[in-house]
């Protein structure tokens, strides 16, 4: 489904990603780990066309992703959440989710003001779909609450809801359980499993929480200084001396 080949990204003198290869097959649930600054989020930013890599190839469903405009990524079925939240604070939770479904609507600068036929039904449909997703993530009671002022963990879930409203095929989660309590982390793992089955998703999750990644993912890829240093089942990666060294410096 997704093929990353020899991806290299440099920021000035810093090489954030250096020759990264990654293959993701449809239906997989992959964990992307690595110390801070390893290039995990940079990889996500390349996949959603926030950054253009200096070299390398990104193929998605057989097409060259680098030829897709940033706003058209959602239409190709890729959606994501952000490490430090990328919500719209002044909008309500429901409206945030409805923006996620932007590509599934048509109402524009003429049809909406004039309330042309179809606008009202489309609005009702988008609202209904947003509420369905919110119900799935147990957020429906907060639908009318502004996104500003909710707890961080809740907002992380709102972001997942917004990403799901786009009806993606590939979902990229950037540190979804960062800042969550122990109980919330377990709940969240359950949510991810359920949405993967229900929405038929392929998921790549960046996370530092080892318990979460190891318990959830089928395959784990570890990045360090912009390179893939280990790849395999959670057990294999956990035992890999290169991974242990990357995290702890030396074996402790």
């Amino acid at each position, binding site marked *: 489904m997704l093929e990353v080949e020899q991806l290299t990204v440099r920021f000035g003198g810093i090489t954030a990603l250096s020759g990264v290869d990654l293959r993701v097959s449809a239906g997989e649930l992959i964990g992307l780990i690595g110390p801070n600054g390893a290039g995990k989020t940079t990889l996500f930013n390349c996949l959603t066309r926030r950054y253009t890599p200096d070299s390398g190839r990104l193929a998605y469903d057989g097409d060259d992703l680098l030829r897709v405009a940033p*706003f058209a990524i959602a239409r190709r079925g890729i959606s994501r959440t952000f490490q430090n939240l990328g919500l719209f604070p002044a909008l309500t939770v429901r*409206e945030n989710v409805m*923006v996620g479904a932007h590509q599934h609507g048509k109402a524009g600068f003429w049809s909406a003001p004039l309330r042309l036929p179809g606008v009202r039904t489309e609005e009702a449909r988008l609202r209904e779909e947003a509420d369905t997703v919110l119900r799935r993530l147990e957020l429906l009671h907060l639908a*009318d609450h502004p996104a500003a002022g909710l707890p961080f963990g809740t907002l992380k879930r709102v972001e997942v809801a917004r990403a799901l409203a786009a009806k993606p095929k590939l979902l990229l989660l950037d540190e979804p359980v960062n800042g969550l309590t122990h109980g919330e982390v377990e709940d969240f793992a359950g949510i991810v499993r359920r949405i993967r089955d229900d929405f038929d998703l392929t998921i790549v999750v960046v996370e530092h929480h080892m318990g979460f990644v190891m318990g959830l993912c089928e395959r784990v890829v570890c990045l360090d200084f912009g390179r893939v240093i280990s790849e395999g089942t959670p057990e294999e990666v956990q035992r890999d001396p290169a991974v242990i060294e990357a995290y702890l410096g030396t074996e402790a």
Partner: protein
Amino acid sequence: MKSTSETAERETATEAVPAATARVLPPWARWVLLALAAAAVLYAPFYFAPFRVFQLTLVLVYAVVLLGLNLLVGYSGQISLGHGAFFAVGAYGTAILMRDGDIPYLLTLPIAAAVTFVLGLAFGVPALRLRGLYLALVTLSMAIFLPPLLKRFPELTGGSQGLSVEQPASPAWTGLAEDQWLYYVSLAVAVVAFVLVRNLLRSRAGRALLAVRENEAAAEVMGVRPSFYKTLAFAWSAMLAGVGGAVSTWVIGYVAPDSFTVVLSINLLAGLVIGGLASLSGAVYGAFFVMFVSSVAQDISGAAPGIASGLLIIAVMLIAPTGVAGLVRRLTAAARRRLAKE
């Protein structure tokens, strides 16, 4: 405690969305209040003297202009220090059409709207590459540039003398005086403009516009094309200014370059901020400011009206950082809490 900026954000948001918290009053009471307000607005031209009616008509005109400016500044997070120029294009275009063209005056409105829409689109594209201060400067230069340009082509624009046009007469069947008729025409234009913008904001397009303002990168990831929404916001904003300009020519019957100086553009922006950014009612409050600030300032200090109006702006911003609309929201919320307790 929330920081003030966060509270301000939340307050500006409440009008853009159907307020879920505003259900303390029973529905019938809201309708009664609305009906009373509507009756007052409709009865005003019979209650006030013609000069006051004329002033209130101009308030309606400015409300349409500020509605447009709000779409740009409040809802899409851009800025324009030159909206007086679009207003002027609408006003002059209408005056020229009424002088030269043999067309019914009502037809000048869609023409002015179309012309300023296209102009707004043309300005919206370079605006994409400019932000904040840079955009402010470019739009400001537009406002500075226009009055001398108008004076430069006297055959078309009447030069410094300006143009006088015959004002639309009130149809005989209405039995209304001219000022009353123009008030109702302006009211109709304003109501249509407000309904259109409200519908826009409460739609997929409106949400996308706000999303771009709030977090452009995230909006883009969600499939919103920021350049499209920003450009169209600019075009709609210019169009509403042009519509206001067209109606102002009907109402005043005269255009001159000195009515459209940079001071007008700055007053419009000040009026919007004082009325309340990203709030539909803010455009109405702001329109009162634009209409009456100079005369109030003159009353406060005949010697230095500029200083008086400046101090007025500072005072309002200190008392109500989210504008009059924000202040009204806070006061009604407080009143509701009190009512709910009793």
